[in-house]
């Protein structure tokens, strides 16, 4: 049986850990050994099945995202994550290689894990990417822009790409490995489990590729019933650091709607302001598969929870904070199923937004149409196929990679 290492290097929250755990647990039941090499280990305490895995801290720089301008391409993200300094990237690369050499995986599954991919490549290990479109850049040179709310000079995209590539090649040289010709080679893999649909892919410039469907897990968490009553049913999942949190809480508290809200680590004063007979405020992730069946609106930041809910035909009001969320919200808007508000949106817009989306039947209609289009999508089938593909990569066939090497 094989040894399978999951790597998560960039990004935050629970989505990466939940999705990897769901896949890894199934692989483990088939007899494979699992390692999680993760950016954050704290989340695993809420996923008891991961106690049966080897869990390691992923190499990460002490300072991240200190580059001046907001990122416009994957190369810009890299420059803010240790790729602006050859010695720093060398240190990260050595740490990945040390771990992979000692744990000896047969395949590395990379969830937003560029340096894990680089290390696996340098050790000639089979590898796959696993994640939404934002985590897997199109294989173009230079790595293309994902920013489209403002003009990005092509020279800037090329310069970032060249700078990150120079750093990568210096780090490869420091560990005695040959250079890359293009930064895109870092992301070459035996398979890309691109877990989204083309309409929701954050990159609108990706050459033709396969899509494996969203991967947000809706089948675990706290069981919560919708409060009884007459109002519309709103599910709220936002961070307490969201700039318009108080405005949102005020709007909800004044509305006749029924609410289930999960706002992690919400302070008591705000919790008390929001909670009521018709508004349930919970302190841990909610099991969503039943909740979304009767949900009239989801209010979130626009991450994978949003695209997941779209598959159940739930329209969205998104408050994107990160650029990834902004891109996802824009894509859901293009589908016709979402409205979104920027972090700087005016108070009256926030107050009116909920009734606006609920009052325009086109949002719900578009969400339902989207759900119908992908009615045959099954997370279990997605997982079955991913496992089948991983095992095919692991099993050398006469025409497979072993023979071709």
């Amino acid at each position, binding site marked *: 049986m094989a040894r399978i290492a999951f790597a998560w290097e960039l990004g935050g929250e629970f989505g990466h850990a939940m999705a990897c755990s769901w896949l890894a647990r199934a692989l483990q039941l088939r007899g494979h050994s699992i390692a999680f090499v993760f950016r954050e280990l704290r989340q695993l305490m809420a996923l008891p099945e991961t106690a049966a895995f080897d869990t390691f801290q992923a190499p990460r720089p002490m300072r991240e995202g200190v580059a001046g301008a907001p990122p416009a391409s994957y190369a810009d993200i890299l420059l803010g994550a240790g790729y602006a300094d050859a010695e720093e*990237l060398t240190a990260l690369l050595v740490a990945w290689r040390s771990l992979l050499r000692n744990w000896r995986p047969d395949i590395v599954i990379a969830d937003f894990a560029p340096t894990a991919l680089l290390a696996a490549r340098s050790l000639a290990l089979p590898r796959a990417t696993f994640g939404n479109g934002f985590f897997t850049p199109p294989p173009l040179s230079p790595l293309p822009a994902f920013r489209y709310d403002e003009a990005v000079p092509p020279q800037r995209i090329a310069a970032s790409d060249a700078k990150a590539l120079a750093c990568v090649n210096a780090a490869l040289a420091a560990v005695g490995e040959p250079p890359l010709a293009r930064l895109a080679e870092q992301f070459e893999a035996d398979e890309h489990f691109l877990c989204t649909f083309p309409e929701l892919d954050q990159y609108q410039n990706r050459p033709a590729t396969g899509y494996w469907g969203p991967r947000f897990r809706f089948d675990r968490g706290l069981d919560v019933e919708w409060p009884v009553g007459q109002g519309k049913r709103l599910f709220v999942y936002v961070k307490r650091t969201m700039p318009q949190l108080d405005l949102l809480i005020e709007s909800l508290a004044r509305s006749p709607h029924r609410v289930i809200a999960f706002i992690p680590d919400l302070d008591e004063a705000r919790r008390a302001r929001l909670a009521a007979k018709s508004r349930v405020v919970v302190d841990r992730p909610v099991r969503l598969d039943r909740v979304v069946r009767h949900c009239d609106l989801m209010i979130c930041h626009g991450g994978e929870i949003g695209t997941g809910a779209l598959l159940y035909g739930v329209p969205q009001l998104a408050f994107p904070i990160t650029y990834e969320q902004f891109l996802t919200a824009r894509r859901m808007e293009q589908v016709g199923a979402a409205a979104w508000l920027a972090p700087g949106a005016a108070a009256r817009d926030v107050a009116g937004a909920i009734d606006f989306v609920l009052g325009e039947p086109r949002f719900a209609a578009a969400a339902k149409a989207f759900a119908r289009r992908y009615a045959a999508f099954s997370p279990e089938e997605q997982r079955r196929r991913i496992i089948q593909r991983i095992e095919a990569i692991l099993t050398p066939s006469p025409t497979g990679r072993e023979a071709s090497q």
Partner: protein
Amino acid sequence: MARILCAWEFGGDLGHIRRLLPIARELRRLGHEAAFVFLDLARLGPYAAEGFEWFQAPHMRLPPKQNPSPLSPSDVLLNLGYADAAGLAGALMGWRSLFGLWQPDLVVCDYAPGALLAARMRATPTVAVGNGFSLPPPAAPLEAYRPWNPVEANVLQRLDEKLLATVAKAFEMLRAGSPPRAAHELFAGDSHLLCNFAELDPFGPREGVEYSGPLADSVSGRDVAWKAEEHPRIFAYLKPRDPRFAAIVAALRKIAGEALVAAPGLTDAQAAELSSDRVRVLPDALKLDGILDSADLCISHAGPGFAARSLLAGVPLALVPMQLEQFRIARRLEAAGAAAMISPDDPPPDFATWLTDIAARSDLREGARALGHAHRGYDFDQAAARAAQRIAAALPG
């Protein structure tokens, strides 16, 4: 031969790597296999060619609010994520997996409480090393950092209890037995090595403790030399981010004699702008051999590495500590009669007058010379070899 992991979690600057790198090299020379687990890996980047393996130490999330003046060593850990049991349990799980993978026979811990706790879970022997600041005396409760600002004992007691309660909760989440019962166990290994001189121990002097001497990376630094025979010769090693930096450089230009200022962090242009004929400001670390011996006065923040260098050179010090560890070291040097200092809370003096006075003080010159004399012949390479031997002697069976 044995497998020895060298772990460093907390504390900034170069002191920790300058201690652990020479130790690891010496352990290797003794035939052992050494590897590193660091929180800040970037420091290791320049040493890739030496072929050591290294790993990422588990990160913990910092609490939303941090106390800028922690009261005790327990308070510091609570500020670094040790108030969050789930976060700590995640980190300890990471340490435990790594120990399971690499199978160390011994873990050397340089301010690495996570490594100490995980080693405790699997009964792997540990040696705690440090200059003293990360090895607080084993009192219960742990002593206040600022004994000159009285803190009620029950306040310190509560900090220790809070720390131990989180650790116990994390142990329970991982189904691990025997959590520590006293806060000092998060700092102390099965044995420890005070890699410092007694006179520079921030918690010194301690009774019944062996000081095995400071370690340093003997390489590194740009060569410079004094230009002329003008005195006083003042050597300054300063962080440009200190708000007093500009005033000190300006004062040096007013004083007769010659000055060299090592200010890593400045750009070349900034350094050139600040330089004059008699005052050379350099944006790099400098090679100190040959410079310090013929200096009349050193100016520094009382960082432990440079303090040891100037002590060995027998040069008096004008100290401008920026943080608590430096402040405690500065107090020790002041008590030894080899330094004068301005505390971070003091209003800055007229630096030209202050420095001129110190340079003229024969008592400090003699105090510093006596300290240097007491450690005459001290050799950093031998100290590293000695430390490695002591560590190897702690190996089981």
